[in-house]
């Protein structure tokens, strides 16, 4: 590693909108530089997680160090792959701070999209060199000329700086590497300075502990050094440093300007948070700016299907969050579903990926609900905002094309799907942040659900008066579908105090007897009857109404139709 002076190093990232081909380009770059063998099997090599490979998305940022010769000189190129999805923009911004340039990949047919713009701004504000790369030129509908004009107009980058490629076929990819060397400056740092390392990702390995991906902004680091985290103030001894190719390859030392990994006896990924700064013990430095704890945007309640599964789910959650420090976990409980958790995710995709990993890697099936929101009962308003009881506080134009709107929202209104709805409505262009504004008096009431006049404890909710009718009707309809017909009529009602605000009726059976047992074939009928008898044993009785065990789950379950 010492043979690569700072001038020979290029740190760059690939940024793009979802599916424009970042990961495929990364594959090709790895192949060309000989980092991986060139075979047909190289598809999304940097996407190590099963769920990433299945969905074709990158969830965790990975990186790789590439060695490349150009015009007689040897270069060390550090590539950092980034998630394209809007949920992970914080991770993108941290990866970028370790770079001096980016490849901005744009699909030659789709052209500039929401994340292209968002990522461009991130790179621009970080003052990075930006190389536009127009990808998928092999496809029939590709129109690189149009896209180049878009780029020039929106981003002010001259057309001749664009590189047209097909990452899938490898066309012109070598040119990209040359541009990286020519256009992206080497890092401005000095090995003589004290150690200053940015943590831009971390993973958990069962045998070796936390592996932190770092970029050195100054100094050098090797085994035996003692380092301190600027955020937690904790001290660690370095066990191993190395580079990623993309697998871990230990080296003796890492120098300023280089990118690699570090293992230093950290036990949890929360000890190596993205954006944190590491420095040598007794040589503190100014921490790198822009660090913040990941803020959850989407919340969900998660419960085991059966309370006997509680401990299994608990340990699965613990292990899964080992490698995902951006998921927030709080214990919670519900009358209907028992003990569980309230989890916070960076976005809906983040939540879905999490669930999928829970199922695939830990074989757990769970009930996912809208979460409970803490309230204090006391007492006192664009269409999205209006429906959600928000109060506008401020409006500020950043430039001719962007505006910041500040609103005061009840937390209840944003915990479930506000973020997603916002992204949907704005085609991904709007972004959203929030902070706690304390408790505010609101017009809240308790709504009961009744079956033939008997209240169902598990479904009672605290709800805002304005929402009561709609929610009441919704719950009644769902409950009607979840309960089987019986020998008498069932009135399903939503009530506030004594006042009924919504009602559904489940009519009684008038005929329920099988016509014929053909030729003595009684066996089939007996099987069915006995199965129904078994089902009956598991039913709950509310008054005289028999309710299947899974009825409440079906009513409370979060709708996943997105």
């Amino acid at each position, binding site marked *: 590693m010492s043979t690569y002076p700072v001038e020979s190093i290029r740190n760059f990232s690939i940024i793009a909108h979802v599916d424009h081909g970042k990961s495929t380009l990364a594959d090709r770059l790895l192949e060309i530089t000989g980092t991986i063998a060139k075979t047909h099997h190289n598809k999304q090599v940097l996407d190590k997680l099963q769920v990433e490979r299945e969905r074709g998305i990158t969830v965790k940022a990975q990186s790789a160090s590439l060695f490349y010769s150009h015009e007689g000189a040897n270069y060390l190129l550090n590539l950092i792959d980034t998630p394209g999805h809007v949920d992970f923009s914080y991770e993108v911004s941290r990866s970028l701070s370790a770079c001096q340039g980016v490849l901005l990949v744009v699909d030659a047919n789709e052209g500039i999209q929401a994340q292209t713009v968002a990522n461009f701004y991130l790179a621009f504000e970080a003052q990075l060199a930006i190389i536009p790369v127009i990808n998928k030129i092999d496809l029939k509908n590709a129109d690189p000329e149009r896209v180049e004009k878009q780029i020039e107009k929106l981003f002010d980058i001259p057309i001749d700086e664009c590189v047209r490629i097909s990452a899938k076929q490898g066309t012109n990819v070598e040119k990209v590497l040359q541009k990286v060397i020519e256009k992206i400056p080497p890092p401005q740092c000095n090995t003589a300075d004290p150690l200053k390392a940015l943590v831009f990702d971390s993973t958990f390995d069962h045998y070796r502990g936390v592996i932190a991906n770092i970029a050195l902004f100054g100094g050098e680091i090797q085994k035996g050094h003692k380092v301190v985290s600027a955020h937690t103030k904790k001290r660690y001894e370095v066990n191993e440093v190395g580079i990623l190719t993309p697998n871990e390859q230990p080296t003796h030392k890492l120098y300023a300007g280089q990118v690699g990994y570090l293992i230093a006896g950290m036990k949890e990924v929360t000890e190596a948070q993205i954006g944190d700064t590491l420095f040598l013990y007794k040589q503190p430095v100014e921490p790198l700016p822009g660090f913040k704890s990941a803020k959850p945007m989407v919340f969900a309640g998660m419960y085991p299907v059966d309370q006997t599964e509680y401990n299994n789910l608990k340990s699965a959650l613990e292990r899964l969050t080992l490698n995902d420090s951006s998921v927030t976990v709080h214990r919670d409980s519900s009358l209907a579903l028992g003990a569980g958790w309230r989890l916070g995710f960076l976005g809906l995709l983040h939540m879905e990926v999490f669930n999928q990993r829970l199922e695939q890697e830990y074989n757990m099936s769970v009930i996912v609900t809208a979460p409970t929101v803490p309230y204090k009962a006391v007492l006192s308003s664009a269409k999205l905002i209006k429906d959600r009881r928000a109060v506008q506080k401020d409006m500020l134009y950043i430039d001719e094309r962007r505006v910041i709107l500040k609103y005061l929202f009840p937390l209840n209104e944003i915990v479930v799907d506000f973020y997603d709805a916002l992204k949907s409505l704005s085609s991904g262009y709007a972004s959203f942040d929030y902070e706690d504004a304390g408790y505010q008096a609101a017009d809240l009431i308790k709504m009961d659900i009744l079956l033939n006049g008997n209240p169902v404890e598990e479904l009672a909710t605290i709800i805002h008066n304005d929402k009561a009718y709609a929610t009441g009707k919704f719950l009644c309809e769902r409950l009607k579908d979840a309960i089987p017909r019986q020998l008498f009529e069932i009135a399903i009602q939503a009530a506030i105090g004594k006042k009924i605000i919504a009602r559904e009726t489940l009519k009684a059976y008038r*005929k*329920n*007897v099988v016509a014929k047992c053909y030729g003595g074939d*009684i*066996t089939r009928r*007996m099987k069915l*009857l*006995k199965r*129904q008898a078994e089902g009956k044993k598991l039913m709950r009785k509310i008054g005289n109404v028999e309710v299947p065990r899974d009825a409440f789950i079906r009513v409370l379950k979060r709708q996943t139709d997105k």
Partner: protein
Amino acid sequence: MGHAPGGPGAGGDCWGACVGLGLCLPPQSGVPPPVPTGAPCPQWPYCRKRCSYCNFNKYVVPAVDEAAVRACLVREARTLLRLSQVQSVTSVFFGGGTPSLASPRTIAAVLEAVAGAAHLPAGAEVTLEANPRSAGTARLAGFKAAGVNRLSVGIQSLDDAELRLLGREHTAAEARGAVEAARGLFPGRTSIDLLFGLPGQSRGAWARGLEAALGLCDHHVSLYQLTLERGTALAAQVSGGALPAPSQDLLADMYQTARAALVAAGFRQYEVSNFARKGTLSTHNLSYWRAEQYIGVGPGAHGRFVLRGEGGRSREARVQTLEPDAWMREVQSRGHGTRRRVVLSPLEQLEEVLALGLRTDEGVTHERWGRFSPHLSLEAIFGAPGEAKALQQQGWLVLDGGGLRCTWRGLALLDSLLPALLCQLQRRWAPPAAPALPAQGAAPAGGGGAPRRSP
């Protein structure tokens, strides 16, 4: 007290119902022990065409080797009767398929085989199911001569459009003709099958159809709600949207209308789907619902009996091989083509007694229950506070000196009552305590008097 259970001739000549509990009913002085009885059900599985709603084990083939099939039916009937050791036959029912497509010669041969293997009393009910297209007077006379004394005509509907919808091969006129011919040859012993709840059928259409049927029928009517079975052409038409599915309310109305109309015309509804005037109940069907023994013969036939001839002691649920050619090969090679046999535990038998018995207006009598559960009466199981009591209070069920049965209203909702009753039965039933060892000496089975070596 009772005696240790054994094989044939080991004391109790009971008819198998109580065995499996390890006990035998004590013979009562002066009363001869009951003789094992059974009801053979020969199946003729062939049809000329498949109706649009049918999913039964039926085969439409261009040519049937009748002689071969006949020989196999005869052979299997003999084999199974011998295995069951049935001594007296209570009834015979030729089903299928379309039994009226078989020749009278085949019918005669099977009846002869039955009469040869057991006692077939002169007045025993012998029913043949007939399709109107193969129920001309001459043919029916042939069946009568062969030994048939009751006819069940499958008319299903007296409306030509409905018959086409059902995929039936006959017209309404042919149906009428067949019933009239049958009544001529089997007066007071003719039954008709009717279907209601056809897709698109209105209340008015059903009322008219019912009236027409009442004007035509003899003294026995079997009334079935059309069920759309998966895989049938009719079900596909409904699920594809070509035909409307009748609503639950409509079906309920049609059923109740029919019940009331038939009762008003002097019929007794003696089972969910069966109505009889002037005492013409079908003995054969009663044996299903009273959990008596019946012996299925032929492809796909079902049976319930004890294989006393093999030393068996428990009632079995049996099915013969479905596919005719395969069935024939098996019969030819080993005398019968039994595909599946499952021994029913005492509790399983009781569950069947309950589920089937409640289908009749008579319900489950104390006596019948006692044959299957001598140690726990109906009162013991269903009399305590619980599901049955609640259903009684709601007016669906009756438990009294006559036994356990549904009320008129309850019968239409039997499948809503049964799961609860089965729960109660399962909860409250327990096998009887082990019987006291016979007082023969201290020696256990295996020797007389020799001291037992401890392991």
